[in-house]
């Protein structure tokens, strides 16, 4: 399988009154066509910011370092995402080859514009087509994601739909332009558990049908286990562990990932106490020196943790973790 998007040394800071705040530090990963990646981390870990960088969608005060590079491979050639400046150039990564769905389906539809109108607008922006054709595709798409009475829904507003229905409509809208990459930013967090399962199943079907890559942003490892091929774990802007989903969940290598997993309730032993990761994620304004996780880590191996940022260590071909518990300089 060929590569769909390559992120190299992505470092992103926000210019604020308090100075430059590092949101993402030196993150690299790549995604192949049709691959599903889970991007996991607590709030403030930089996962949403990373995803938005792929669409060049971060706020105006975002500063990318010159080393940061995001390359999108499309049929028409390679796109250097971060070098795009004009809105017309950005359309390829905004709703064209990349689409995004958000956590709050209610808030991501404009409240006073019908769902159909917003869908048609997007289709017309990205393809040279008539309104009638765009409407036809939209209704088809609404129907495909399991919305009953698609013709009627097309003319309705987001507030007239139920939560699950709204997220389906959002997925329909995101996929209507047949993107190669779908970024799903906590798409099921705001939904009931039963609806969550439906939406996840729907997304799995659609990946196969449209053969697209998905970046699934979530803090829910359960959702990742169900959907993703591989998983990347972020903590305070650092990518700390990466690997195939089963391997990471069965044998987590980084103390933080281990902590996240042992914080989950175990269905086979409900009486065993939950062991949460102690403390809170530090404010990006007070980024710890050395390993950013050392303030909460239970496996500190010496001063290196407080002074040196650990490099990624390759446990095997595809599984890596950035932690000082692994020997230095031996990574493959």
């Amino acid at each position, binding site marked *: 399988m060929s590569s769909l998007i390559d992120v190299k040394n992505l470092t992103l800071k926000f210019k604020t009154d308090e100075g430059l705040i590092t949101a993402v530090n030196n993150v690299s990963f790549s995604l192949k066509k049709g691959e599903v990646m889970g991007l996991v981390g607590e709030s403030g870990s930089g996962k949403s910011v990373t995803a938005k960088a792929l669409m060049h*969608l971060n706020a105006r005060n975002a500063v990318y370092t010159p080393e940061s590079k995001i390359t999108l491979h499309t049929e028409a050639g390679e796109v250097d995402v971060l070098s795009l400046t004009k809105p017309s150039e950005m359309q390829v990564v905004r709703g064209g080859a990349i689409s995004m769905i958000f956590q709050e389906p209610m808030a991501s539809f404009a*409240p*006073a514009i019908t769902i159909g109108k917003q869908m048609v607008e997007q289709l017309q*922006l990205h393809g040279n087509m008539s309104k009638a054709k765009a409407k036809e595709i939209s209704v088809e798409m609404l129907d495909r994601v399991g919305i009953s009475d698609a013709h009627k829904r097309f003319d309705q507003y987001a507030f007239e739909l139920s939560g699950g229905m709204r997220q389906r409509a959002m997925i329909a809208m995101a996929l209507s332009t047949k993107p190669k990459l779908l970024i799903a930013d906590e798409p099921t967090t705001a939904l009931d558990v039963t609806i969550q399962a439906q939406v996840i199943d729907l997304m799995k079907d659609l990946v196969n049908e449209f053969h697209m890559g998905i970046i699934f942003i979530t803090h829910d490892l359960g959702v990742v286990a169900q959907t993703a091929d591989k998983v990347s774990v972020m903590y305070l802007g650092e990518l700390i562990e990466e690997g195939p989903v089963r391997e990471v969940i069965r044998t987590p290598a980084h103390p933080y990932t281990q902590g996240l997993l042992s914080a989950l309730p175990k269905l086979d032993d409900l009486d065993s106490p939950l062991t949460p990761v102690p403390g809170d994620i530090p404010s990006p304004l007070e980024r710890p020196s050395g390993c950013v996780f050392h303030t909460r880590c239970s496996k500190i191996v010496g001063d290196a943790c407080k002074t040196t940022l650990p490099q990624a260590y390759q446990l095997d071909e595809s599984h890596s973790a950035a932690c000082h518990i692994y020997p230095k300089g031996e990574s493959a």
Partner: protein
Amino acid sequence: MLSFVRFILTRAVMALATLIIVSLVVFSLMELVPGDCAERYLAFKNTQGSGISVADIEAERARLGLDKPFFTRWTVWITNAFQGEFGDSCILRVNIADLLGQKFWLSLGICLSALVLAYAIAVPVGIIAAASNNATLNNTLKFISYFGLAMPNFLLALLIMLISTVWFGETLTGLFSKEYRDADWSWAKLVDLMKHAWLPIFILGWSATAFALQTVRALMSDEIGKLYVTAASARGVSGRKLLWNYPARHALGPIVNSLGFDLNRIFNELPIVALILVMTDAGALLIEALARSNDQQLAGAIIFLLTASIVTLNFFTDVLLAVLDPRVRKSILR
């Protein structure tokens, strides 16, 4: 469509009901003023030297219908009020409708013009200011708008008059030149009115603009930060299309909502400006009626007319809001 007509009718009935309730409040307030019209007028005559007795007062009361019960008098008053008839002034003894004449409509016209001026400036400027990240532009606008809020209207009026008198030798007072004051309406009279009216409109519009600018800017900044705007730009919508179809369109509802409130505020400021510019408008007459002579009939008439204007404006903004916002429309059209 049919349900929309029904909605408009419901709102109209509600506006009417509001007005009737308001009229009851206004009428009760008029009654609460110590003494009544008969006493007041005769007391006034007394100061002019003519002797009066209790019998005179009673006769006057009977003549004015003041001996009838409260509810009956209110019914008569409200019925007449809806026909634009407010009886005689207590002191001046002239018909109030004649006395107010064009004054009320001129005042209302000036206030509405100031309101239109304020929003015609505030809406586009506020939207652009909220969308722009140009610090100089934003700070300049902030300065002008705070200055507009802080500068009292009467001071501005005095300043402009001073400048025009000293430097241009022109006195910008009144609403009409002498030759047109009592003339019939004609094109020339309208032009003459415009020549004079721009000043009060400008002065009243000045602080209203500053106020509206703050409102529009705040509402817009609020909308721009919302997720649906990010979502729209993630779909590739950009530039003016994004700004006007998404945040601007959604900020309009609350802006429309604030119109009635602003008209009221402008009308409250009118008397002071009118006093300085030597315009005898309805606002000045209200102060005269309330403060100087306890003329409750006249005051009641002006307050009723003002309330009626605001209720009417609110009726229109309600309908406009329903047209603009599907959430409002759908919630009422069930």
